[in-house]
Structure formats: structure tokens, C-alpha cells
């Protein structure tokens, strides 16, 4: 059975649907990229998958015994975080919170996990630095390390490279690809169709036209051709 199966899902605000009749499946180990125009409901879809908001209609079936505390999430940055006095270590460790249940303090295992993930993201040297004083790329690595502490199976990323320069963007994509190769399912929202086609193996396009399928199918489809054309047009301008 698939990890996540979405059937006839409708998303929107206050009864008004933005997206209707969405159907797709995510299997363990997939790298799914969600693309589409601004305001097409990408972030709403992600929040619905995370059960932060309820769908207007339809169903999300979770299979393979996936539990809520096995999901990692890299959200877009919030205003609160911009002047939050917290060290990198404190933030990464907070990713283990769901494992704690009602236990008040982190145990050795969780502390080791936080260290391991900081190492994986190459931020061990920043452990005692203040989060708000880091560069955008470093902050994203911190949040990714936190997400890795929370996940054992699935990682959801909401525009992980927005606001990053090209070099850091490339590093981020490589990190995510490496995580996917280690067997963690990745679902990523992106504006960057070039990267989506390069790294993902499945594409979900929402907006004016809806498409779901493998990368190869997407490149041949009408939606894909149109979108690629627009992107190229935008880039040459």
C-alpha cells in the first residue's frame, strides 16, 4: 500500500475551493515535487497533508503504518522566528519534542540524534550561535536538521530555497537529494521547475491545469510543456 493516498481532495478557504478533485499517491522513497503558480494552493495542500487544516472534501489515506511523529516538516519562516533568541542547538533539539510525549526532558538518545543531524547538515560549528544572526542558508540548514530529528520516514518541505542565492540553493538541493537517497520520502513545494525536473521523480502540478505523474510523463504533458515555456520566457527576459 502507498504511504499517502489522496482521493478527490478539495482545498480552499471558507468554503471556496482553490483546488478540486486532486488525486495522487506517494510511495515510500519517492521524491515528489509540487509545482504551480502563486496562489494555486501549494502551501494549503501541504498544511492539509500535515493535518494543520481540514480539507473541504475528499480523503487523505495514510498507509504503511505511518505515524504523525514520523513526519518531518520544513515550514516557511515565520515573523516570530526572525527575532527569536535561540541557539542552533536548542532549535535542532526541539525537533525531537514529539518523541518525548509527556517526558519533560530530552534523553541521551535524542541529544545524540540532534548532534548527528547537525553534523549531517554541516552546522556543528554553529551549535551555540544565535539563530537570528545566521545567514538565510544557514537558517534553512538548521530547520532542516530539526525536521530530520522529527522524521523517520517522510519529509515535507515548503519552498526550502526561497530567498537563497544560487550557490546555497544548489547546496540545499544536494542535501535534500542525499536525504532522499537514504530512504526518506520527500515531498517538496517549489517555484523552481528546473530543479523539480532535475531532482524529483514525481511531479504534481496544481493550478489552472492539474497533473500528476512521473517526471518523464510530466515533460511530455501539456501542462508541463506550457509551464516550462513560461519559465523559459521568464528567465530570458
Amino acid at each position, binding site marked *: 500500500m502507498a504511504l499517502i493516498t489522496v482521493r478527490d481532495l478539495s482545498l480552499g478557504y471558507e468554503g471556496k475551493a482553490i483546488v478540486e478533485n486532486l488525486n495522487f499517491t506517494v510511495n515510500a522513497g519517492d521524491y515528489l515535487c509540487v509545482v504551480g503558480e502563486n496562489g494555486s494552493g501549494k502551501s494549503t495542500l501541504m498544511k492539509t497533508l500535515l493535518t*494543520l487544516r481540514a480539507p473541504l472534501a475528499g480523503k487523505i489515506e495514510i498507509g504503511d503504518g505511518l505515524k504523525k*511523529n514520523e513526519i518531518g516538516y520544513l515550514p516557511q519562516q*515565520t515573523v516570530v522566528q526572525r527575532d527569536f533568541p535561540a541557539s542552533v542547538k536548542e532549535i535542532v533539539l526541539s525537533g525531537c*519534542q514529539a518523541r518525548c510525549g509527556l517526558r519533560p526532558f530530552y534523553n541521551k538518545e535524542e541529544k545524540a540524534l540532534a548532534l548527528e543531524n547537525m553534523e549531517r547538515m554541516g552546522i556543528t560549528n554553529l551549535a551555540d550561535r544565535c539563530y537570528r544572526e545566521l545567514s538565510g542558508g544557514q537558517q534553512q540548514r538548521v530547520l532542516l536538521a530539526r525536521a530530520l530529528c522529527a522524521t523517520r520516514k517522510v519529509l515535507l518541505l515548503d519552498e526550502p530555497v526561497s530567498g537563497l542565492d544560487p550557490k546555497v540553493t544548489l547546496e540545499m538541493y544536494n542535501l535534500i537529494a542525499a536525504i532522499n537517497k537514504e530512504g526518506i520520502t520527500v515531498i517538496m513545494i517549489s517555484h523552481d521547475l528546473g530543479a523539480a525536473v532535475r531532482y524529483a521523480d514525481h511531479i504534481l502540478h496544481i493550478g489552472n491545469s492539474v497533473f500528476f505523474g512521473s517526471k518523464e510523463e510530466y515533460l511530455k504533458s501539456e501542462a508541463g510543456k506550457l509551464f516550462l515555456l513560461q519559465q523559459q520566457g521568464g528567465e530570458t527576459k
Partner: protein
Amino acid sequence: MIDKLALYLQYPFVRYALIVGVLIALCSSLFGVTLVLKRFSFIGDGLSHVAFGGIAIASVLKITNDMWLVLLFTVIAAVLLLKTGQNAKIKGDAAIAMISVGALAFGYLLMNIFSTSSNLSGDVCSTLFGSTSILTLTKGEVILCVVLSLVVVTVFILFYNKIFAVTFDEDFSKATGVRAEAYNLLIAVIIAVIIVLAMNLVGSLLISALVIFPALSAMRIFRNFKSVTIFSAVLSVICALTGLLISILAGTPVGSTIVATDVAAFLVCWIAGALRGGLAK
């Protein structure tokens, strides 16, 4: 001056005031950091006005031990404020303004219509600014204060990591399976308890100052959550002690002296932070 102080310290009511003052300052500063960071600074203000309304009702009903009733009121208001903040039909800050000003008006109205006291404006003034109430605490009230403070501190220590996670990123916490809503509720209830406690010390108008100033001061200087929390607790206790001693020696009102000390400490921290930032660059 030392002799004068030694003389005063022989009176039990002065010792009670010092004990209660320190404990309240400690409790209010612990949750201050979370309130400031969650953009809830005004909740303290709103709840304190609700507590004022509660006191007014209690005095009309001639309930002598009004602390429990006020506590009940304030906890309910805290829960309601938190819920409206999430549903966002009326935005959080507007909801707080509505409840707080409404409670203030009704409180004063009730006190005015049903007043039995000969010195109404004196009563109102002391509820709002806390003037002398801390020096007139009974032993029972002191014990209640100590017990509630211990509860607040214990809850804070046990839930420290959860409070951090929920404050830093509520969506992430919820998405990964942390019961963020339950912890938000816990935070709101504890805040209500702190407000009711702190009313004894500084009166309902000045409570926010006690909650947010130590946190803001600490955030000028320190860069991680643990140090900010510890420093704001220490600073708050020092300011409360200093303020209490000054007010005892100089005969100034307790609440406003403590808050003035907090403001002074904030200015010092602000300058220290600016200097440090300047040097670091």
C-alpha cells in the same frame, strides 16, 4: 539607613511583602519570554483588567476571600482569549482590547453603584496600582502565594522544552505530533494564575510591565532561550527586591517603584546590548 531597614524587617508584614514580592517577580518573568515572543504581550494587560472586574464583583458580593473567584474569572478569560486568537474572526489584539476595556468599565461601574466603602476612589486606585495591598497581606494569603508560585515554577521547569518548541514554531510542533493546543492552553492558564498573583504586588494596571520588561531586557543581551529565561528571572527578582526596599525606605508606592526599577534595568540592558553589538561589529 541600614538601622531603619533592620527595624522594618522586624515586622512580619514587611518580611511577608519581601517573600511574596520575590516569588511573584520570579513567576511573572518566567513566562514573559514566551508571551513577548508569541506576540501576546497584551494578554497580560487584558487579563489584568478582567481580574479587576472580578475583584469588583467579589467586593459587591461581599466575598472576603476574593482570590479564588478572581482566579476563576481570569482563567476563563485566558482560555477565551486564546480561542478567539486562533479562530481569527475578531483578531487577537482586538479581542483582547474588547475584553479588557469592557471588564474595566463594568468593574468600575459595579464598584460605583454598589459601593459600601467610604473611600471609593482610594479602593479603585489601590486595585489598579496595588498601592499598599502587599503590605497588608495576611498569613493565609502569603501561604497561598507561596504555593501557587511553587506550582508555576514547577510547571515551567517540567514543560520548559515543550514551551520552547511551541513558542518557536507552533505549526512545526503540531505537524510533527506535539500536542501544541494543549500546551497553549496550559500557558494561558498559568498566565492567568500569575496575573492574579501579581495583582497583589503591582496592581492590575502595571502587571504587563512585570511580565514583559525582564524578558525584553534579557533579550537585549542574551542570544539563546535558556540564558534569556534565566537572566530575566534573576533580573526580575533583583528589580522587585530593589523596588520593594526603596519603597519601604522612601515611602513610595510599591507597584510603581518596582516597575520604575524594571524600566531602569531595561535601559541599562538596552545600552549594554547596543554597546556589545557595536563592539562585535
